[in-house]
């Protein structure tokens, strides 16, 4: 039952926190929460860490790799996006030469 309690409380916390994110930031929000569900990688670590069976080695290692793509890629790409939002647009007008292509 404790786990159900945690789940229900997390639903409320999730709705409360996320409904305050403005539409403008929905893409980074989505990409960040996307990175957060990469936490399933822990499951892969536990599977491989305690496995002694060939199939579990293979499945678990793929799961870890998938999870790592999800986590590392997700947080990094969110960081890149948010860097664009937080920079001061008025100070540097002539600095966008790299985006030409």
């Amino acid at each position, binding site marked *: 039952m404790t786990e159900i309690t945690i*789940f229900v409380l*997390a*639903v409320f916390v*999730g709705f409360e926190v*996320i409904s305050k*994110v403005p539409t*403008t*930031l*929905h*893409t*980074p*929000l*989505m*990409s*960040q*929460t*996307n*990175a*957060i*569900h*990469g*936490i*399933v990688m*822990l*499951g*892969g*670590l*536990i*599977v*491989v*860490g305690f496995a002694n*069976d060939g199939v*579990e080695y293979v*499945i*678990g*290692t*793929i799961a*870890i*790799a*998938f999870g*790592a793509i*999800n*986590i*590392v*890629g997700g*947080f*990094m*790409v969110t*960081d890149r*996006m*948010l860097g*664009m*939002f*937080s*920079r001061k*647009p*008025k100070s540097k007008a002539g600095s*966008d030469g790299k*985006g030409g*292509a």
Partner: protein
Amino acid sequence: MVEAVLKPGGDAATALYIVAFSLFIIGIKQGTHPTTAKRGNLIAAGGMAVAVVTTLLLDGMGNWGLIVLGLGIGSAIGVIASIRVQMTEMPQMVALYNGVGGGAVALIAWSEIRHGISIGEDFPLDSLIPVIFAGIVGSVSFWGSNIAFAKLQDLIPTRPIAAPGQQVINAILLLAIIVISVVLAVDHESPSEGLFILLLVLAAILGNLVVLPIGGADMPVVISLLNAFTGLSAAAAGFALDNVALIVAGTLVGSSGTILTLEMATAMNRSVSNILFSGFGGAPSGGGGGTGEEKPHVSIGAQDAAIKLAYADSVVIVPGYGLAVAQAQHAIKEVADELEKRGVTVNYAIHPVAGRMPGHMNVLLAEADVAYENLKEMEEINPEMPRTDVAVVVGANDVTNPAAKNDPDSPIAGMPIIEVSEAQEVIVIKRSLSPGFAGIDNDLFYEPNTSMLFADAKAAAAEIAAEIGNL
């Protein structure tokens, strides 16, 4: 070297997991404002590091070679992909990351089943049921996201692909999945691994069949929904593994995906099930848009457009997916810069479903250095429209169609739109008069105060910026 000290399920490990998910919540909370969002993302990433290190320190962990291999390959792919991706490709990137997350969940569920069977004891229902749920939803999410990725990347056609009787096939698949799940749960003393794999395969087929018929412009909804699915399946995996970090993190993502899905659906004035199952837009009957004689419209060149804009007091730019396709965000910003030099007020009107994922346009414009304050949401900008001298529509179509307001029989009737036709003048930059995603003619193009500029968005914007500079 620290010895593996944490007892699995012990107080120390649980406490560290609580630290991890608290950091996720704080991180998301900081995401409510652009100035703190970057730090918030780092905080959440820190939470992830705590969770991963805690798990690696669990007593009894082994097979380090494989763990390092998995982490190394995955991290390398993640780093390279996130550095190389263009901002216009963000929707498919998110779809892909979402897919691998779902795939990981499905694989973990599979190995949990194997593990449970190999121990040979009765599989407790409170972990078997979450494992089954995680397997099904993870598999649907993996394949559904991959199809969404392939569509957004133009690897397969973005138009809806539907076979006759598809709804029936989907219903049968769903029924079969439910029956197999029940059989597995009833047989919890020795669940069959073969049946579980069959379950994963059926869920995979369902994931493919559900997303294939969905058109490109409905992708914001699909991506949000699949994000919610992967989150919930991760939470289910947490129930199975008795891991609070997974439960809380997965649930947070589930909530976020659900909220975004509902917001997108509201913004289209359609229900989620209508979006998922109707094959809306460009379905066989919808293709007849371009036939018959052309209705009268006004066509102008870049120079005329530049004059209209340069002598306006206020201009509103309405971007759509076409802006992303043409990579026109920087060129549009140049037009805005030229106008601002002349004292013209320039704002951007963002429709909630413009682009291919929620907030897609905001990211592109932020990439082009457009100030956050100039990005206006639909509700905010619509009352300003009658006081706007020129509205410039770049690569947007259905979200500006006045038929949504005026024609109760239109397929998009009731959809909230950016009311550009209320502006004094409208310039539409578009390649042709062809209908948008909804497959219907846009009445806006034929209104007396609308001028059409037929061109590629990026080329046209560059030309307009140059012309304004020469005035």
